[in-house]
């Protein structure tokens, strides 16, 4: 079993933060949303989602609370903290900067 590469892992954190910024979700719903949004391109396995969630919780970027899910079962919902929001802004800005640069380089190559 290999770990996702650093790029994907960092990206996974950002994606989770981004999705949770829209609305609090539980793990299952989050995994479905991830697949849906990323069109399964990034190939985020469910196996790496949960450790990532726990890591983010530990860092204080998200927090968890238990409440009833859509089908009325107890589920663990994650939502963004203030710190998480800042982190998301930072990562988004960073991402934009990096992807712009990379796009530029790729454009150069094709020219």
């Amino acid at each position: 079993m290999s770990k996702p590469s650093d790029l994907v892992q960092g990206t996974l954190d950002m994606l989770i933060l981004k999705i949770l910024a829209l609305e609090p979700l539980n793990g299952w719903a989050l995994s479905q949303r991830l697949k849906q949004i990323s069109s399964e391109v990034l190939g985020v396995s469910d196996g790496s989602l949960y450790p990532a969630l726990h890591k983010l919780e530990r860092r204080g970027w998200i927090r968890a609370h238990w409440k009833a899910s859509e089908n009325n079962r107890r589920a663990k919902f994650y939502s963004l903290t203030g710190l998480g929001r800042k982190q998301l802004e930072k990562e988004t800005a960073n991402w934009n900067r990096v992807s712009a640069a990379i796009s530029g380089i790729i454009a150069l190559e094709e020219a």
Partner: protein
Amino acid sequence: MDIEQWLYSLPARGRSFLHPGQVDQEMKEELREHLEEQIKENVRQGMTPDEARRSAVRMLGGITQVEQQCRDARGGSLGADLVQDLGYGVRQLLRSPGFSALAILCLTLGIGANAAVFSWAEGILFRPYPLVAHQERWFALAGTARGGSGAEDLSWPDFEDLRRNCSLCEDAFVSKITGSTLSVGDHAERASGSIVSANYFDAIGVHPILGRGFGPGEDSGSDSHPVVLISYQMWRDRYKGDRDIVGKVQRFNNVPHTIIGVMPEGFYGTFVGWAIQFWVPASMEETFESGGYKLEDRGARWIEAYVTLKPGVRQSQAQQEISAIAARLEKTYPATNRGRSLGIWPLWQTPFNHAGDLLPTLEVMVTVVGFVLLISCANVGNLLLVRSLARRHEMNVRLAMGATRVRLVKQLLTEGLILSALGTAAGLLVAYWCRYALVLLLPTRSGMTMYLPGQMDARVMAMSAAVCLLVTLMVGIIPAFETRHLDVAGTLKADACGVVGARGRAWMRSGLVIVQVSLSFILLVGAALLLESLEKIRSTSPGFTTTSVVTTGVPLVAAGYDNPRARIFQDELMDRLRALPGVESAAFARITPLGYGTFSETPIVVDGYQPSLEEKPYVEYNQVGPQYFATLGIPLSSGREFARADDENAPLVAIVNRTMVTRYWAGADPVGRRLQVKGRWARVVGVVADSKYESMRETPMPFFYVPLRQDFVRDPALNIRTTQSLATIRAALVREVHALDGNLGLYEMITLQEQVNRSTSAQLVAVTLVSILGGLALLLAGIGLYGVMSYAVAQSTRELGLRMALGAGAANLLQLVVSRGLRLTAAGVFLGTAAALAVTRLLGELLFQVSPHDPVVFGVALAVMITTALLACLLPAWRASRTDPARVLRD
């Protein structure tokens, strides 16, 4: 991590720490929930329930794996990790019991030696008095003489003035050691006691469990308050724990004392070296001290005292005030106090008990056990290093399985912690057993055993815990360092074939061995220097004969003899003694040199000698009987010995030593000249050679003698020069004493050589301890060297086989291995020599007429080291020489 993030992460960390079980449970529940949703989803897509479950688990990637990854991600499961690591570590250690036992044994020795020395230092120097409060604010109080270096006793009036006037002192109290014979006859039993000021028990905060302490005013007057408190031990052993003991009467030095109280168990008084068994108020000093009534005599200096400073007061501040008080006393009472001042010392430097005797030894010991600890750490580190190489495969697998390097290092440190914790536990046990070891090394005196226990208190425990952590770091960090070389890809690469003397990773093991060799070389040099000093001390002549002279005494005071009866008894005993076969001569003396007692000191005036304005000549003296110099073999260079005619009715006479002649008569023969002693003129009748008086290390000092009869004491030492054995002469003497008085016994009888040996016991202690630890260090270094060489040989069989196939003989291979071992040793000795040259002067006053750089000593240490190294290398070298090239190269 910045503060904000730290704050945000607190809830998650806190929960992980406080409710690890619940957090784990929730995490499992969450995963189960996910799994069920996935199964439902799969079923919806048309899978069979069985298929749906398998697929869901596969998609998640294994439930336990994900669970563990979540735990790792939370990281907060510190406790769980630790428990896991501990369990794993214990299993690892159990798997190789030989290795574990050796490692733990090494650490036990290293840590145990440290804990023992800490506990001795605590029990002797820093917190010597169990049950006593505020010892950290205690300071010893003693007199000083201008121009003199040491401390002297105090007079009672000076003490009282100081106590009244010292505003920075919370209290000041007197505690002067004394002794008494409790009963006479064949079972003469000595007890050590303290003469104390009335405020003593209040000042030290220890109160009797039965009866009362001393009341104010009980320390004034002449023999006016015959009351006594006894120790718990004396109450239990001598009085069988009698609940009605208070009010009963016990004779001390034949004076009836009323027992007014019993002190609590575990209180041994306040004198380092002896367990005090009774306490009497200062008003009873005449019964216990020679020299008559001294409480109003400012010139009589006889007490030892302590001050307790107020909280927050520094020693220097208090010393300033005390010096000022002493200066005022000097001005007010010039006759007695000219040139005198007062000083305070922290407890561990107390000038008047045995703390001072052992201070240099303990200082050296702290350094020595530090070395031993380093050596044993290096040894265990080396063992772990060798094992970590054997475990590289395991480590690589764990890395490949997703363990982080930090986690591996944690695991290694945990294993180090297990080893050092076990070593510390065993070491504390060793230290506990060694509590009384110092006493075993010290001689008994007049039949009493000294009391110098180690103290295993919270401070010692904390210190040992700190050592344990330090050891954990030292032994854990070495293999952890090795994980640098790990890489997943390298797993399948064959272990590089070693070469004897190869560079690379071997440098660390070699480095550790070099450290071990150099440290143990330093200890060897230290032990050899101390041994040489002891030899010098014991072979230096004290200025009197030691082998054929024995010394003892008869407890006349305790038996109730007054002065006239004592004089008659002494004369009669002397006559009977001299008639005994084998007795060449015999003489009484108040004190025999180098014994336990201290000599009296007196101001003197010498006819024709004009002291400078500042100088106030004080000289120590002894009271001796006829034939004293013949008995001790001290040569008389001019004049005559004392005779029996020099008694209380005859004119006062004195005999002086050579140094005194040089100092006060400019070397001219003083026989017939006058000397004023204690205000009365005496005529000098003889000059004797210098000898040692109080210590083998002292430089020649002025000293004189007066006839015992002209300055009488009832309990003098009895010295006998004899050709008989000790047992024979003792039996004969007991017969003669019994013939005179059937109730009398004898004090312990020893040869003067034994007396000299006892006076150098601090050296003996130092030599013994440093030698034991030096030997231990040598052994550890030998094991270390052996381990490295064995490993090197085992790793390089291929190279050895190749060499052999190419024509090297067994002798060549033997030489190859031995020379490599000796190279390591040489490097160690080189470093050790450089370090030893720098640190041996720390032995300072423990050395006697030996240079800390003595070349012979260094040579001997070198020879011992090389021999050990050769022995350690021989077995591995022999194994190398037996390499079978055919088999090795085929493998």
